[in-house]
């Protein structure tokens, strides 16, 4: 048996130190009673900093044999080096929550997890990026007004500190000064285009845009080159509701602002006409909210982590009671909710929902109860794993080639968005992104990086090492730095610009 304890700092913390022995002991006892071959078991312990998440305190992740899934049937056998460690299952502990349980409760949880959890699946096994949790995430942004009405607070209030890091005047002035310097250089060579494009992906309530534009006008007055006259500021967001709010915020700049509803994973679908023309792309808290898979290098073999969303049986019973549906019919209401949204769901299923408020309540209860089961499936080859439709998993090789055990997010949505956005940049352009990044593969061995639930959305820390690697392979210098304009934040600033 292999025990992988990731949150090392919790063992020797001066406050709230974890007594891992008290957690591990009962779990090992349960494993001993339930498993025939402990040599093929991994125990992995995380500290889930998101109190709202998709995990039980104790869960089991089986290892699926190569060739056992449909996806592998067409391929030749995957060569298996003799040094590969074959495991049957991984038992995952959230040591934060386990610390609150006594030994019999832990033993009981572990035993039940090993025998098979009493969950009602909402979907089949598949890539996590294709799970219905992303349907919930999309619904949150599409029906944000209804969610906010129900919770009584705006989504910005759900952010740490109650506001986005984007609305920072010093940061905006810094960006504008860099833009002006680049434009001055181009103007000297008679190479400054007549239209100067700035794109913002994920606009929030428009405050960032307003701060930027106000500061731009002030700097332009001082500078005297009349760049504001040539400026086109493009606000882009997935949510038309959010865009509408943002447009009102920047009403005084409306001659220079356009807004686009777009999917952040493929900005070129709406902005293709700006290829190589954008001088600044500004992104704040978008990537951590885009679909992702996870891959794992364990015992010398690379696995894809498959998942399926499910609901605990008691939650299904409760949802059935509140909607007047039979418990077995509750799972069918979920895809209907995701397809129609709460407003139309109330109309489509009047027997279960008295009105929109009831449908929103069903949405929120389901979301709160939602869990993800996981399993490991060997990858037949990195190049056979599509990181995005255009990028193969081969890009992961430098991150995995050391061969050490690691499980990490591959941030498919962020990768697609980042790579697609780079093609918009002018040779003198810059991409600036504030978000939650893991900037060192080693960090995946010591900390939990998601998924967590953030209000009604999904949050994952973004694989910054992978983005940097992909950026470099596309001719960009990618740098990370702690967000410079607020102390004590987890936010990291990514900056990308053309090198060579």
């Amino acid at each position, binding site marked *: 048996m292999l025990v992988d304890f990731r949150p090392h700092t919790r063992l020797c913390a001066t406050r709230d130190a974890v007594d891992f022995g008290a957690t591990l002991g009962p779990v090992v006892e349960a494993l001993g009673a339930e498993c025939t071959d402990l040599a093929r078991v991994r125990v992995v312990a995380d500290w889930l900093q998101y109190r709202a998440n998709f995990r039980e305190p104790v869960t089991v992740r089986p290892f699926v044999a190569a060739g056992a899934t449909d996806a592998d049937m067409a391929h030749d056998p995957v060569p298996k080096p003799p040094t590969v460690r074959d495991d049957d299952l991984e038992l995952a502990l959230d040591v934060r929550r386990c610390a609150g349980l006594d030994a019999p409760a832990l033993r009981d949880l572990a035993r039940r997890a090993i025998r098979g959890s009493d969950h009602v699946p909402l979907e089949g096994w598949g890539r996590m990026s294709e799970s219905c949790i992303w349907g919930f995430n999309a619904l949150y942004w599409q029906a944000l007004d209804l969610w906010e009405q129900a919770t009584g607070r705006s989504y910005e209030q759900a952010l740490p500190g109650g506001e986005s890091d984007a609305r920072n005047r010093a940061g905006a002035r810094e960006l504008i000064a860099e833009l002006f310097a680049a434009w001055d250089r181009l103007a000297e*060579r*008679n*190479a400054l*285009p007549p239209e100067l494009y700035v794109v913002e992906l994920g606009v929030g309530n428009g405050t960032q845009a307003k701060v930027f534009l106000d500061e731009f006008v002030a700097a332009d007055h001082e500078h005297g080159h009349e760049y504001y006259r040539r400026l086109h500021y493009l606000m882009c967001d997935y949510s038309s509701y959010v865009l509408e709010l943002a447009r009102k915020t920047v009403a005084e700049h409306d001659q220079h602002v356009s807004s686009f509803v777009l999917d952040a994973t493929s900005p070129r679908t709406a902005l293709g006409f700006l290829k*190589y023309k954008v001088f600044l792309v500004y992104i704040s808290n978008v990537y951590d909210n885009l679909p992702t898979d996870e891959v794992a290098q364990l015992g010398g073999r690379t696995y894809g982590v498959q998942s399926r969303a499910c609901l605990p049986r008691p939650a299904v019973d409760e949802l059935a009671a509140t909607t007047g549906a039979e418990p077995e019919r509750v799972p069918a209401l979920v895809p209907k909710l995701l397809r129609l949204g709460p407003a139309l769901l109330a109309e489509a299923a009047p027997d279960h929902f008295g009105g929109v408020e009831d449908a929103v309540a069903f949405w929120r209860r389901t979301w709160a109860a939602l869990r993800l089961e996981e399993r490991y499936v060997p990858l037949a080859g990195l*190049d056979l794993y599509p990181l995005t439709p255009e990028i*193969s998993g*081969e890009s992961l*090789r430098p991150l995995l080639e050391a061969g050490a055990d690691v499980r990490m997010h591959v941030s498919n949505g962020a990768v697609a968005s980042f790579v697609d956005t780079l*093609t918009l940049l*002018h*040779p003198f352009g810059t991409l600036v992104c504030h978000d939650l990044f893991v900037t060192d593969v080693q960090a995946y061995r010591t900390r939990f990086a998601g998924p967590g639930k953030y209000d009604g959305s999904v949050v994952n820390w973004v694989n910054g090492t992978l983005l940097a690697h992909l950026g*470099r*392979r*596309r*001719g960009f210098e990618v740098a990370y730095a702690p967000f410079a304009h607020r102390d004590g934040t987890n936010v990291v600033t990514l900056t990308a610009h*053309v090198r*060579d």
Partner: protein
Amino acid sequence: MLLPTTVVGSWPVPEWLERLKTDHYRGRVSRTQLDDVHDTAIKAAIKDQELAGVDIVSDGELRRDNDVDYFLARVPGVVLPLSVKEFYYDYYTVTVPAPLPPVEGASLGLADDYAFTRAHTDRPIKFSFTGPFSLAQRVAEHVYPTRAELVHRLAQVLHAEAVALAARGATRLQIDEPYLAGHPQQIGDAVEAVNLVVDGVDVRWGLHVCYGNRYARPSWEGHYDFLFPAVLDARVDELVLEFGRKGDEDLPVLAHGGWDRDVGLGVIDVKDPAVESAATVANRIRRALELVPAERLVINPDCGLRNLPAANARAKLAVMVAGTARVRETLGPPTATTVDDRPTVATAS
């Protein structure tokens, strides 16, 4: 032959070859093994061009890690503080801490590269190499009082290569200057260096100027008007330019600037994997024919194909050939069926 088709130089580098090249720079694949891989890949690249119907082929520049290091790192006197690379395509940091030694003949091995290609195809061959101006831009530190002097010294090195290439039978050489568009005010120095390279080398010379193709991105933006009038002094037979991606609004610049020699007309956007149609190619050629007579047009992609997936590159060349054939059919019966490799300008000073 009217409207001969050709390539600018480079051929797609597939992922597996990138891995092998990178492994070489990390010491996992020997030089001999990598050379063998390159030989095999080059033969395949030549065959692909032949199958696509391209009239004048290249070796795909597949031996080169990028457009600079293959040359610069071999120049006697050039120093590489670090000779390993994280990725083969990265540029070395290069310095010239002391004056380069006098040139005593070819030292870069380009003639051998040409000879290998010659041995594997019966078609005319274009052999290209990066020009002295662009090579000099990648030197981080040097001992010369001005960069122009470094450009001059590198031109002498390349001149020796050109002499050796011609001696081995090369008839069509091309100087690539991918950095020139980023330094338009230095066009005079660049042309002077080009003339040093071609001096007395009696082949058909092309000069390729684009807006950069590193990682399939333009490194600069602008217009070709910066080339004139200085480029008129360049003793080259052909200007090879990109028009496929940028559109042909710069074509009149050639006529207004007084360019009366051949034009390598870029009709394929190498920065976009989407494959053009033969009709698009034909239209691009027809628009060019309004300004340049068919006798002076050579049809090629905008730049090297290295950043494209191989299947897309093959498809793009095929439509380039098909589109060209459509236009040829409208130009009357062919006056010749072979490619003319004769120089049109005297290269001797």
